[in-house]
Structure formats: C-alpha cells, structure tokens
C-alpha cells in the first residue's frame, strides 16, 4: 500500500501557499542550466509550464502527438476562464471563487489545492493580457465579464466563443519564443509510449515518432505529464480524435496512483449522435441555455411521431410540451448545473420521450421560439448568431425556425493521476498538471474552470513546486540512455507493438472501441447502479480479451500507421475502463457527475454520503500486465475552514 502524503502546508487556508513559497527550496540560475525537464503535452497546462520553466532557465524537452503544439485540444474550449478579479464590483473574492469551486465539486476535492487555484487565478488574466490575448472589452476599454452556471457573480473572462484558442495561442507563442531561444527542444508528431523509472524516480520517457515509427529514449531529471483527460474511453465525446490516456496510464502501471477515475463530466448540450459512422460529438455552448427552453413532448406518441418524421416539433402545442427542467427545478430552470441537466435529459429519454431519430432515440429540444418572441430575432442573432450558423452547417436545420436538438456528451474527466500539493504523483519526480491530474474539480467541474486550472498549474504552481523537488537533484548527472532501465522500458514498448501487429484478427480497432464506448455510456455513464457496473466489468473484460485475439492492425510499425496509433491507445482505454467501473461500483453514494441510482433522495436528488465517502479514491495498480488488479488507497478530505453544504437547485439561495 502506498502512503498518500498530500504535503499540505501549515497555517490558515489563506496562508498556506504563501508559507509554502517562503519555505520551499529553490534552484539557483547556474544550477537550472544543468537540469533537464521533460514536458509531455502542449495544451494550456503543458505549453504554459514548458514556456515558464524555460524562461526560468531549465532545459526543456516538449512532446506532442499533433503536428504543431498549437493544435492541442485546449484550443477547442469555448466559454471562458474564471478569475477572482472582482472587476464587476459584484462581491467576488478569492474566497468566493474557492467556495464555488469546492461546492460545485460536491466536496470531493482538496481544500488547500482549490484555495491556491483561486488565489493565482487573477495572475493568469494579467499574464494573458500581457501576451496579447484579445479578451472581450467594454466600451470604456476595460475587460468584460460574463456569468456562468452555478455561481452568483460575473467572473468569466472570454474571447468570443474561442477563449481556449486565444489562451492556447498565448501559451504556444511563449513556448515558441523559448524554442527560438534554444531553451526548449520541440518534438511534434511524437507520442509518449512508456515512462522510465530509475531507483524509484521518474527519469525519462520512451517515445514513438508518428512519421518514421522510430522509438526513442529521452532523459529528464523530472517528467511532467500534461496529457489531458480520458473522455475518449467512451469513443464518442467532445474530445479531439487523438486525445488519449496512454501517457497517464503507462505511469499508472509503473506506480502512479489513479484517483477518482469514475468522476466524468457529461456536458448537457451537444449535438445528438446521428449515426453509427459518427466519429465525435460537437458541443454547443452552454450559454445557449440562457435563452433556450429545453423540452420534450409530454406524450410518448408525439415523441415517436417526431422521430419518424410524421410530426414536426412546431406541430406540438405548448400544452403538450414538457419543459422538464423548469418543472423539476423551478428556481434555476434551464440553468441548472451540467450534471443535473444531463441526468434530467436521460430521464425523459428513458421514458420514451427522446426525439432524435437515432438507434437510442437520445435527444431533446432546445427551443429559441420563446426568446425570439420575447426579444426579437435580431437580439438572438447578435447573441448566438455564430453558434446557430455552426449548428445549421452540421445538422442542416435552421434553429431560428425549428428547435435545436441536443443531448449530453462526455466532455471532461475530473479524475486523473493522484498528485500531492506540489502536483507530484506517487512516483517521485513525476509531476502531473491540467486535466491529466485528479485536480481541483472534485466530482464535478464548474464551467470556465478548466482553462483556469490548466494555466494555474502551468504558469504559477508547477514552476515553483518542481524546484522543491529538483533542489536536491542538482548533482545528478544526466543518466546514459544505455542504462538497463531505458533498455527495459524500450523493450516493453517494442514487445507491445509487436504483439498488437501480430494478432492479425478480423476487426478494426474502431470496431472494438465503439463497443467499449457503448458499454461505458450505458453502464458507467450519466446514471450508474451496482448491477450495471458489475455487468460492465464483465463485459469490458470479455471485450478486452476479444480485442487481444481479434484486432487487426494493418501495415508496418516503421512509418505512419494510424491504425497502430489507435490500437496502442485503445489497449490502454480497455484497462482504464475496468478501473472506472470498479471505482464507480465502490463509491456507494451520489456526488457531482457520479450518480448512483441506489443513492438518491425521495425527490430523486443525489444522496452524498459524507460519513463514508469523503475521501479521494487513489487506486494502485497491482496487476501483472495480464490480469489487472487494483488496491484502494484513501486520502481523507478534511475541511478545516469550509462549511459543508448540500447542493440544491430546486430552490434559490
């Protein structure tokens, strides 16, 4: 059993980060030049960390699977980034941002980390503006803010609907500047395949060049994973096609604990699935719920008629429409938090009232008719014109005339590798930042907080905490790449690839991935129960066995081989999937994005069980590579200064 030491500094909540920084060890400029750091991933967390570490003087090697670091999937974040600036004079503060985040996460995140996140949030905005990020502004020239779900203040900064893109370009440009200065060496189109551990410390990685197929060894005094989330285990998600868990998973199998894998955020407003061939789900901004009303027909026959094309949504009179969010949650209505909206959509579709003509009938309406009647078409056009256009391009429907069709989609994973206050995993020298760690969002993430966390970790936290680790590494000479541990790690990679290529079975990787996704979506999705989860575990194991017997990876390993890339990633998803189901089964409570049917109130609301489950579930890999087993380690969550409440969106408060 590993000892989970969160290393939370002494003092009051508001003093902890200051105390930490005053007492931590630092590395002198002369010694920084002698230290090599590997950063994997170039999204907001990876790019910002790499640039900042290089500015400080470390030698940084950066890896990404994309052809350019600017394409990492942070680029797709739409809505905005939170910061406790209180520019709107509406009563915001570090404490409020902290409290909203910890409450929004349903009290399943670590007090000290979340407080620090809120503390550094302001610096991120300053930094981004200095880099030239063109945030929205008011006529007077000052920065504009807007409000987001689940909070009472306007603290979200945004750049049209492309905030992630603009922040990523800022970090990417900072990174490229360091490449130009020779402090960063960049390896695009390169995938991390394994981690190298020497004398108990992370000392390097094994990579595969996706163009030449070359397997390479890289040394680092420390390794930083910024490789994002694992939503693609569901096959369909809002993630990019290449987003994967492999780097984190390889580290997990070498000793890094994986925390709260069952905590997945399902976003309520994506365009529904339209066919078997579909490759991904497209998100429609959450802001649409400000003016759109969500409904399904009251009558099952009407829903059926709509699916079959015998009726149009416009044919259903108001009295036959069920505005179910307004009915179930009168206080918040269509603006309930993401997890609540997602569950309600599933509930009405399970009742047979789903409206989409797809195999599962999963879809509900988001209707702007009422807003257009109230405000006029022009106002709606100004607010959502570009989103409506995008929707029409994808679906061929015009949302000014007929309601949008939406359905929840897997969007973000709160779980990830366990890290302590210093963002170090249970492997010394292995740091994990951004969505890849289990982080600050507990069981549910608030809107506009992912960008905040990625950049907080990369710009303002890791560059401090990593020095506390590196301070006693200054005399360590770079380890020869011929070291037996490098040999061994590379051999594992080669054997793995050889094995996959030798199966020569009947079915494509996608064939298996789609089936895995279906199991996960149906049984480890929006709503879970013990029986379904047990079935899921059996089904995942059986399908995994079938995958290893019957997958077909064509071509060779010595060049571009997209099928091989997919096979490598899906093999890891198969193992992660089992752990997600195990974690969901063990957590006999409902909290945030994790809803267990057995644990709900009489009104159907989630029943959190603080007496039994107020802890981080950090799973330790105990398998032998063939049979997978895990041991549960618990990090109790202690709330020293935070009042603990129950989330309730039925009443305003």
């Amino acid at each position, binding site marked *: 059993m590993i000892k989970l030491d969160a290393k939370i500094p002494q003092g009051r909540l508001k003093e902890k980060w200051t105390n930490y920084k005053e007492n931590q060890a630092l590395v002198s400029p002369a010694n920084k030049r002698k230290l090599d750091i590997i950063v994997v991933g170039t999204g907001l967390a990876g790019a910002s960390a790499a*640039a*900042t570490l290089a500015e400080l003087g470390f030698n940084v090697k950066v890896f990404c699977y*994309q*052809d*350019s*670091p*600017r*394409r990492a999937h942070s*680029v*797709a974040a739409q809505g905005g980034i939170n910061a406790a600036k209180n520019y709107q004079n509406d009563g915001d503060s570090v404490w409020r941002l902290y409290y909203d985040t910890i409450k929004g996460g349903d009290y399943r995140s670590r007090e000290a980390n979340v407080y620090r996140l809120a503390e550094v949030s302001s*610096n991120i905005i*300053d*930094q*981004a*503006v*200095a*880099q*030239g990020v*063109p*945030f929205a*502004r008011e006529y*007077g*020239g*000052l*920065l504009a803010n807007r409000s987001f779900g689940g909070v009472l203040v306007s603290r979200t900064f945004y*750049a*049209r609907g492309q905030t992630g893109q*603009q922040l990523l370009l800022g970090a990417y*440009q*900072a990174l*490229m*500047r360091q490449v*130009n200065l020779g402090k960063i060496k960049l390896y*695009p189109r390169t995938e991390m395949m394994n981690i190298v551990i020497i004398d108990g410390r992370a000392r390097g990685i094994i990579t595969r060049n996706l163009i030449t197929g070359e397997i390479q060894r890289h040394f680092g005094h420390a390794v930083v994973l910024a490789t994002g989330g694992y939503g693609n285990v569901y096959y369909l998600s809002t993630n*990019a*096609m*290449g987003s994967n868990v492999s780097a984190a998973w390889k580290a997990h199998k070498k000793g890094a604990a994986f925390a709260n894998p069952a905590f997945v955020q399902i976003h309520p407003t994506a365009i529904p699935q*339209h*066919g078997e*061939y*579909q*490759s991904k789900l497209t998100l429609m901004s959450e802001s649409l719920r400000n003016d759109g009303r969500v409904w399904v027909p009251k009558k099952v026959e009407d829903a059926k008629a709509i699916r079959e094309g015998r009726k149009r949504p416009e044919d259903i009179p108001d009295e036959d429409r069920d505005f179910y969010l307004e009915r179930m949650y009168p206080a918040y209505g269509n603006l309930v938090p993401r997890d609540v909206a997602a569950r309600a959509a599933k509930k009405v579709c399970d009742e047979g009232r789903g409206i989409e*003509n797809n195999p599962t009938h999963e879809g509900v309406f988001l209707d702007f008719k009422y807003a257009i009647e109230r405000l006029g078409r022009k106002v709606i056009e100004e607010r959502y014109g570009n989103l409506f256009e*995008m929707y029409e*391009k*994808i*679906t*061929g*429907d015009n949302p000014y005339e007929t309601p949008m*069709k939406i359905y929840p989609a897997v969007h973000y994973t709160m779980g990830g590798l366990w890290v302590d206050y210093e963002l170090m995993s249970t492997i010394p020298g292995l740091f994990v930042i951004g969505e890849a760690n289990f982080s600050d969002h507990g069981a549910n993430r608030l809107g506009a907080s992912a960008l905040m966390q990625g950049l907080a970790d990369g*710009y*303002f936290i890791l*560059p401090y905490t990593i020095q506390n680790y590196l301070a006693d590494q200054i005399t360590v000479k770079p380890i020869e790449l011929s070291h037996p541990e490098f040999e061994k790690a590379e051999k594992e990679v080669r054997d793995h690839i050889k094995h996959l290529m030798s199966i020569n079975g009947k079915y*494509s990787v*996608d064939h298996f991935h789609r089936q895995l996704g279906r199991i996960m979506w149906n049984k480890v999705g929006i709503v879970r129960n013990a029986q379904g989860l047990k079935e899921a575990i059996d089904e995942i194991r059986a399908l995994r066995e079938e995958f290893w017997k019957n997958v*077909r990876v*064509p071509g060779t390993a010595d060049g*571009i081989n*997209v*099928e091989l890339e997919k096979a490598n990633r899906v093999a890891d998803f198969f193992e992660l999937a089992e752990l997600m189901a195990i974690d969901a089964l063990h957590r006999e409570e409902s909290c945030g994005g994790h809803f267990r049917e057995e644990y709900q109130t009489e009104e159907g609301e989630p029943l959190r069980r603080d007496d039994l489950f107020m802890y981080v579930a950090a799973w330790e890999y105990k398998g032998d590579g063939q049979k997978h087993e895990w041991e549960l380690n618990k990090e109790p969550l202690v709330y020293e200064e935070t009042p603990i409440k129950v989330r309730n969106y039925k009443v305003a408060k």
Partner: protein
Amino acid sequence: MANKTINIKLRVWRQNGPHDKGHFEEYELNNVPTAASFLEMMDLLNEKLISEGKEPVAFDHDCREGICGACSMYINGRAHGPATGVTTCQLHMRLFKDGETITVEPWRAKAFPVIKDLMVDRSALDEIIKAGGYISVNTGGAPDANTIPIPKDVASRAFDAANCIGCGACVATCKNSSAMLFVAAKVSHLALLPQGQVEAKERVKKMIAKMDELGFGSCTNTGACEVECPKGISIAFIAKLNREYLNANLMP
C-alpha cells in the same frame, strides 16, 4: 434528420513520401450518409480499404470541430472544399450529389512538402511564429490586466486577426504559395494591441525574413486566400502588414 445516403466516386491523391511522384487513385463508396462530415466519409473509405487489405489514406485531423487547424484537404479544386467559412472537418456530405466524382488532394506548396497522401508538413508556419510571432514577456511581473484600457473596436479587430487557426489554406490556395495572410494575421493581431507595439518593428522584420527564407511566394493581391480562409480573415490585414513592414524599414 433523414437518413439519406448517396453513392460517390473518389479520386484521391496517393503519395508514399516526399520523394515519391504521387498519383490519383479512384474509389467507389456507396451508401454514404449525407449527415456525415467529409472526414467521417474518409473514415468510411479507410475502413473499406482496411477490410480489403489495402493501405488506408493518410490525412491530418484532430478536433473535428473547426478550430485546431489540423485538417487540410483540397477538395474539387478548393481548399477545405466547396463551402465557405468552414474547415474540411465541418464540411458535410449533404453538399455533394449522388453519383458525383469528388477529387481530393493535399495542400500543394513548396513550403509544405507532402509527408504521405493528404498529409503535409506545415512546420514552416511554426517556424515563422518562432521567428518573432509573440510578445516577449516572461511569466510573472505582468501589470494588472486593466492597467491599459484598449478600445473595444481595437480589441475586436485584434481578435479578427488572432482568429487564424494556422491551417495553411491561404498558402494552399494562393497561386504563388504565399503565406502573407498567415503572417499578416499574427503581425496585425499583435501590432494592434498596445502590449504588442513595443517590439512591433522587430517582429514584422523577423517574420517576413523567415517567411521569405522558407520558400513561400510573394503576394500579388489576388485575394484567393481571403475567400478560402475558414475563419474569414480579411486581406485588409495584408495591407496592415505592408504598412507595418514599410514603417519598420523606413523609420527603424
């Protein structure tokens, strides 16, 4: 959504590496759902090729929601295909007719060597950014974000330029393979903002020098880039770039 399908013929460019001559290959693909995106159609083609024991077509793609800039196909003679204001991944099959022959080629430009099939090497664009496409500030020490007010319309114009996704459609569509729209977008984005004006002159000189060095052609104002840019970046920014460049050289 009706489950309509069409049958199509594809002429796809196949090239086994930068030194291979390359050629078109023809494929028939039946029952393509019109609700599928162009890349989902390519997935169907690849699945078919794999099942026939043939090699799948290599192409770049990632976010599939029009923002990462990875996808890059020249379809029926147009960068990102027949629709305007979209990337290849946002193009849908309902725009094509039953029985139609669709020609798919890679970006063609000296500075974008073909890696394989439809996949090209666009690292030259990163090289241009690397040469100076940034504001030289280190992390920490930035003043409060509201210290310098920026007029709303200026910030908005800077955004219009910053909107570039680096896909390279402008280069691919230009008869001179010029990267002027790409460079103009970054130079304008940063030169419009007070934060970026400090090193504006140095920046424009370095980026233009790098662009020339990498083998991109010159701009002859044909305006094709603006038409094919999936983000609608205006060639007015090229005029801005020219002013910035002249200014930097005449008044150093």
